[in-house]
């Protein structure tokens, strides 16, 4: 039966209120502070090395984001890759369950608003908050680099960094959707947070190193035979590791922020014929290289959110 009235009535009010709530909540600020402090520490440590080796690469700002130091062994992108999912989970874990546990859900849905607007408004608010924080961080790091390096970023560098920013927001969006899905399924904040954080840890710590090789062995046979490494096994591992948002994000960061990256995954010698190793790939070709990974992240975000959306539509509202 067709309902009358736009499903998006009231979405602006939800978006505005939820975004304001995120920026007034202490949990998000703690993670934002942690993200900013550690990212700045990593960038500052990188700058000292860049100053000593200033002639080695034309991409100074990209090195600012990727360089690891002996004193501080995390690069800017390592820290962003770890802390952005945590921030996204913090933004989404009580989105729906919190309304049930506070007993505000039935009162809010008794207003002229469909559930569609409520859940989409909350998701967009999380994404907007994430976007605002990451854009602020991106601008601050560029400003920081400008002041300490004394040179502006080149056009190609800016485009690559913008691409990386978009990928980071999409990566955060995946974890925001995961947190919201658990929030809908558990209808309580604590189990939703634990489930989302546990899944994040599985992908961060165990997926690529343990789970993917194990599952690949089960489906594609042993890693090696008498002739050496087996292609079927390598393909299976690669396919499985790419189910992890962490892997997709890592590959995007690699291709965009290390312009000399010419391929992601297995490369045969025949493919390297004529290539000038170490030479940077044109920016457009780097984007073509990461296009499947970026599309995968965005598709994953939309698919997981769609599951949360459908599950929420089917829920009984009594609290």
């Amino acid at each position, binding site marked *: *039966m*067709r*309902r*009358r*009235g736009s499903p998006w*009535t*009231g979405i*602006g*009010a*939800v978006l*505005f*209120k939820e975004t304001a*709530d995120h920026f*007034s*909540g202490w949990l998000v600020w703690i993670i934002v502070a942690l993200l900013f402090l550690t990212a700045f520490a990593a960038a500052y440590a990188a700058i000292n090395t860049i100053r000593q080796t200033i002639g080695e690469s034309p991409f100074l700002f990209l090195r600012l984001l990727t360089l690891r130091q002996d004193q501080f062994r995390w690069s800017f992108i390592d820290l962003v890759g770890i802390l952005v999912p945590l921030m996204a989970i913090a933004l989404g874990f009580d989105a729906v369950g919190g309304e049930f546990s*506070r*007993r*505000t*859900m*039935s*009162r*809010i*849905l*008794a*207003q*002229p*608003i*469909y559930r569609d607007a409520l859940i989409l408004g909350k998701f967009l608010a999380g994404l907007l908050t994430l976007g605002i924080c990451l854009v602020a961080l991106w601008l601050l790091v560029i400003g920081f680099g400008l002041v300490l390096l004394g040179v502006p970023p080149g056009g190609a560098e800016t485009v690559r960094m913008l691409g990386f920013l978009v990928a980071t927001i999409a990566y955060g969006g995946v974890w925001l959707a995961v947190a919201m899905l658990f929030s809908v399924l558990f209808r309580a904040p604590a189990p939703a947070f634990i489930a989302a954080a546990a899944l994040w840890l599985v992908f961060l710590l165990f997926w690529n190193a343990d789970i993917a090789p194990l599952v690949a062995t089960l489906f594609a046979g042993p890693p090696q035979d008498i002739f050496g490494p087996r292609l079927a096994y390598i393909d299976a591992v690669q396919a499985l590791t790419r189910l992890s948002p962490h892997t997709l994000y890592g590959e995007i960061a690699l291709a965009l922020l290390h312009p000399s990256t010419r391929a992601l995954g297995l490369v045969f010698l025949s493919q390297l014929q004529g290539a000038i190793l170490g030479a940077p790939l044109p920016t457009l070709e780097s984007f073509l290289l990461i296009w499947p990974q970026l599309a995968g992240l965005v598709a994953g975000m939309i698919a997981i959110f769609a599951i949360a959306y459908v599950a929420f539509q089917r829920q*009984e*509202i*009594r*609290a």
Partner: protein
Amino acid sequence: MAGDVVIWAEGLAKRYGSTIAVERVDLEIRAGEIVGILGPNGSGKTTTILMLLGLTEPSAGRAVVAGFDPLREPLEVKRRVGYLPDQVGFYDWLSARDNLAYTARLMGLPRREFDARFAVALERVGLAEWARARVATFSRGMRQRLGLAEIMIKEPSVAILDEPTATLDPHSTREFLAMIRGLKADGTAVLLSSHHLDQVQSVCDRVALFARGRIVLSGSVTELARRVLGGGYVIDVEARGADLRTRLLAVPGVVRVQSLGGDRYRIDCDSDLRAELARHLAASAELLGLRFAEPSLNEVYTRYFDEVRHAA
């Protein structure tokens, strides 16, 4: 359906798999009427409310609320219906004003209109001084009042209150019931679900009794008493004399005589027998007093469910 009917439901039903939550509920409520819905837990009251609000889809039947179908036009229904759930929740970190400003934005109320209505509503519920206070500092009673203020801001044609006094102390309850009467005075129809039968009796014009997903009884308390207790008129008599109980039972139309202790008796009759009783007692006893007593909803409720239990 008459012009002033604001809630109309016919054959409303809700099933969860093989479990029947609500079965063939018919309901009609007019503007400015307060109707109580009673019944044990799980009897289908809240599910019926949620179907009327368009928050859950009926498995069968039809409803029209404030002139709109809650299934097809839930937004129109929700624009015209105020809902106060039991133990209403608010965003603790926001002030009373910010909480209601959010729901006002969802209602589509312009800012200036909200400001005017907010001041009046908070004054009426006695929270004017607490407008800027965070809801985290509010007691349960204050939260319930804030919920009622939200309904007043909406200026709805129907207010649905689901066990609104369940967690209130007696003083707050009295105040809250007065506010519900205020809604009626504004012309708002009120559907009140409650387990506090004395409160329902004190404010409601009519009552609907739910059991196992159905409305098993409905009407005014007097009508229910007539059907369940066997007499719609209850008269309290204070008189002295020998064997009064037997003599009172002999009066035509008297259904039951109950001794209240001392010289007091409560008589259930099928019509207004005050004159006959006075004549009868004046002839054979010393009549000290005689007045109408309201039949108790509590008695009706208890007797009905006792009879159902015995029949089962």
